[in-house]
């Protein structure tokens, strides 16, 4: 994970915060923001924070200030896409083995499918199969959707209107990504020494985007949610079926 500290949007110089407000106001705003973010287990979006905080709180500036106040500490303020959350510093994992749960081990097909969805989203199942050269089982996609990392985005405007998949905010949160484009590009992957053999020359990966706005060739998925759900429940187990059909 990139350092907790400086990834806040740098546009606004931090000094600006201080000048406009009395120290008491500034302190009060930071307190409120801190309390809200601390209370929640899930990342809170700027919009949600703005909605709860008094109108005169400049959420973005306060977030930046709070983030730098916590930088380097045992608990850091991390950005996860649109959301913000306090998380333990990743170098302290060893300390907290008792709180840790060994996350479900992901099969290789599931990991590859997840990587393909993350980089190539929006993708249809056929797209994934085309890249992997092998069919993708429904179970694999179910696992990823159950975990809350993958969602159905919409439908591709092409014959058969296949559903398109993309990643969720939960994906960013789980893999400690500040944003989807925090995923390493080709150069970084090469540098990470993850290749089995010689590093291939012409390799590239797309620049991922999880912008929820539908693409030009996507239709919304809603509307047939009901019907799909019925289909699904008939087909497979309850939890699986449940998550399947609906955008989260």
């Amino acid at each position, binding site marked *: *994970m990139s350092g907790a500290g400086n990834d806040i949007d740098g546009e606004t110089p931090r000094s600006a915060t201080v000048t406009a407000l009395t120290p008491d106001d500034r302190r009060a705003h930071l307190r409120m923001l801190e309390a*809200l973010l*601390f*209370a*929640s*287990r*899930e990342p809170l979006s700027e919009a949600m924070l703005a909605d*709860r905080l008094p109108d005169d709180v400049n959420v973005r500036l306060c977030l930046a200030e709070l983030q730098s106040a916590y930088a380097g500490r045992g608990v850091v303020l991390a950005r996860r896409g649109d959301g913000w*959350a*306090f*998380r*333990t*510093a*990743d170098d302290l*994992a060893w300390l*907290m083995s008792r*709180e*840790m*749960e*060994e*996350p479900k081990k*992901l099969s*290789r*097909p599931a*990991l*590859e499918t*997840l*990587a*393909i969805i*993350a*980089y190539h989203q929006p993708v249809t199942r056929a797209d994934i199969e*085309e*890249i*992997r*050269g*092998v*069919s993708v089982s429904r179970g694999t996609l179910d696992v990823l959707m159950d975990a809350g990392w993958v969602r159905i985005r919409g439908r591709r405007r092409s014959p058969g209107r296949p559903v398109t998949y993309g990643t969720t905010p939960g994906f960013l*949160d*789980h*893999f*400690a*990504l500040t944003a989807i484009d925090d*995923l*390493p590009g*080709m150069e970084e*992957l090469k540098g*990470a020494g*993850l*290749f*089995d*053999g*010689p*590093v*291939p*020359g*012409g*390799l*590239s*990966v797309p620049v991922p985007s999880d912008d929820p706005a539908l693409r030009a060739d996507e239709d919304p998925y809603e509307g047939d949610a009901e019907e799909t759900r019925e289909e699904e429940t008939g087909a497979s187990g309850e939890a699986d079926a449940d998550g399947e059909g609906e955008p989260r």
Partner: protein
Amino acid sequence: MGEVIGLQTRDKAFVVDLDGFEGPLDLLLALARTEKVDIAKMSVLALVEQYLAFIETLRERRIEIASDYLVMAAWLAYLKARLLVPKQARDDEPDGEELAAILAERLQRLEAMRVAARHLAERPRLGRDILARGQPEAIRDHRIARYEASLVDLLRAYAEQRRLRGAARVEMAPRRVWSLTEMYECLERLVGKAAGWTPLQTLLDHAGPGDDREGRLAAGFSASLELVREGRAELRQAGPFERLDLRTRQGRDGQGPEDDGREGGADERRR
């Protein structure tokens, strides 16, 4: 090519090993890796030949091969042919070089995603390397509905509903309601006056004015059972659904001790 196939053929569990591959592209990648060269630079033709030879080995050993692998073999055989035969004029098909480039690109794309997947697996993960607040506190919205309606809406709804159901009988005349206690007292009085067995209905008809037959019957029936239970009256019926007759209890001398007790109870319940 030795390595992959060698490994496979040495072992009897051949099919299982083939199952270890995630489809033909995966097998191709594995074959390419044995060459220890950059896939971008390797010879597609050499790779194709390895693949075809591998499939051929499997066939000779009469091993069942999933159709995916055979389809790929057929396509690779076609690719090989295109690569070896010089391009003909007036041929609309893509030439061998183009096909080979497509294959190499697919392999590279898969390889890239393989690496990306490995990267994902190595990232710090929430719950394993990074923790969220252990004792989250609830952030809640209590939504309170504030209902709104205008008088006109209300009246319109009423008027419309009455108009449609209009002729339907709507009558809320207060009913004469008999309470059990009231009926009990009434029956007790009446049955005492009656000489011998009297139909219950007759007694009820004399209980008071009004034509509330059902209510009277319901209360009267319960009250008569109560009288009987307390040993103040007797009830008889010739058969199911026959008339019910009631009279004062005869021969009170025959009472057992529990009847005394009941009497006390009766007083109490009529209190």
